[in-house]
């Protein structure tokens, strides 16, 4: 069941590459602006052996992962507190809905002047962007926790905090994980964009920026973009794998209902 899906995914990638290759080789697109896919891929592969480039990738990963972790912890704590105190939840609702739609990219200038180190400003932006999907998912999941499960624990004399930690949080956990997965891709976009704009030459974005200076190397730039996409894909694979392992009970039960 899973193997054909992976095979299909590979076919999709190969097909896309083939089309991109064809479009440039036939001269449909000017090769000086968009190099053939094979050239880009070879470039991208060579980057894997480039120590300097890998340092940049590590810098991006560090900021990305740190911001994501910080966002997850914060969202879970805030979500639990909000759901445990209904009045606070109501008071916060408008604020959440007001802050959530602000694009993180609009905050880049603010973050850049607020923090002295670029890493800090990037991480704070990832944190901001990543918190919302996790928090919103958690709040909705907590609202839908099965009342029978909660009542069962209450009937055994468990207090409110115990019920929150033993029933509500575990049953919301799969939704938090989904939130983290969404937040991861949003976070990557934010890091790379900030690196592009900050122009400090740091990270994957900084590399992309530099590859365009001095006449420009479109093949190098596209190779960098392939890397960014690859990182996102890898993160998604990892997180889906973790979800499958940790929340087998969730998928098994959901399957039951269908």
């Amino acid at each position, binding site marked *: 069941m899973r193997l054909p899906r992976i095979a299909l995914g590979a076919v999709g990638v190969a097909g896309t590459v083939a089309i991109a290759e064809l479009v440039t080789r036939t001269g449909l697109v000017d090769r000086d602006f968009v190099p053939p896919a094979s050239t880009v891929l070879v470039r991208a592969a060579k980057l894997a052996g480039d120590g300097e480039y890998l340092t940049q990738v590590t810098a991006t990963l560090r900021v990305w992962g740190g911001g994501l972790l910080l966002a997850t912890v914060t969202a879970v704590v805030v979500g639990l507190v909000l759901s445990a105190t209904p009045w606070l939840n109501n008071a916060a609702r408008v604020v959440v809905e007001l802050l959530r739609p602000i694009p993180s990219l609009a905050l880049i200038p603010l973050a850049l002047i607020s923090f002295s180190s670029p890493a800090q400003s990037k991480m704070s932006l990832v944190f901001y962007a990543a918190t919302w999907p996790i928090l919103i998912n958690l709040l909705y999941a907590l609202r839908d926790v*099965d009342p029978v*499960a909660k009542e*069962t624990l209450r009937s055994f004399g*468990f207090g409110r905090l115990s019920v929150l930690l033993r029933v509500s949080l575990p049953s919301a956990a799969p939704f938090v994980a989904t939130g983290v997965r969404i937040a991861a891709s949003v976070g990557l976009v934010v890091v790379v964009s900030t690196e592009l704009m900050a122009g400090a030459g740091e990270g994957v974005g900084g590399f992309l920026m530099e590859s365009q200076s001095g006449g420009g190397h479109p093949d190098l730039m596209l190779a960098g973009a392939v890397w960014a996409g690859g990182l996102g894909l890898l993160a998604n694979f990892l997180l889906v794998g973790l979800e499958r392992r940790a929340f087998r009970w969730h998928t098994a039960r959901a399957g039951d209902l269908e």
Partner: protein
Amino acid sequence: MLQINELSHSYGDHTVLRTMDLRVGEGELVSIVGPSGCGKSTLLRCIAGLIRPTSGEVLLNGTPIDGVPDDLAVVFQDYSRSLLPWLTVRDNVALPLRRRGGSRAERRSAAEGALKEVGLADAGRKYPWQLSGGMQQRVSIARALAYRPSLLLMDEPFGSVDAQTREDLEDLVLQVHQAEGMTILLVTHDIDESVYVGDRVVVLGRNPGRIRAELPIELPTPREQITTRSDPGFVRLRAEVGRLVRGAAASGDPDDSDAEPPGTKTVSATTQDDATPDDTTPDDTTPDDTTPDDTTPDDATSPGGTADGAGVEGAVSGARGGKG
């Protein structure tokens, strides 16, 4: 051991329970039966300390219940929602024991013991959703047993399992009651079940919920599905409880407590369905030939909604008489 004094409960303007008095002795197994909307579940939640009654009090061993008592366990109807899917069967059973203290090993062995008692010795490492419905409800019962409560409340525990499993679980409750000697309050809408399981049957009427009758069940023990159910005593008691339940369903204000719109006439719908041209002689002795389920208001728009209670009751009996 359990004493309920003038218990009343309302949700807003709607009175669900009115001045209910009930005494349950140590080690007794009392079935509470009544039509839907008679406040059975509300009563049970008041006893469990999950909701605070509007007035009146519940005493457990002489102490008024304020919050959830320590010595009590509840088995809910919805086993699949009551068990935690991320815990193994054994961990589910062991979870409430955290309230009792004791080491992890002690809790685990207590859980294994309780699982063995309900016939699930080998299921401890499985997850609840890997088991059948009947087995899941056994797990819920094991969880309650492991907790060693002096009072066990069961809220329509066998309402969502098939007939065969239901009988097995009824026998399990009897066996557990025999072995452990705890006091059990079993809420059901199944008339047969209430008589088969109970030492005493309490029949509730509705709108508002109140105690309509209490019947001691003097049937030979141990009970056995085939012989007990064919015992003339069982047949007589079953008919009597059935009549009381049916009367309770018909005579109350048909405005059901499940927030049915006013004017819902339960029985008039039934009358239409069941009336046959030859229902000439109203016969009050055979109104128990159906389960109380079919009196659940499901047709709020049926005509004839203005008939008063007494008239409706007569009409229903007439319809049933004609049918029988």
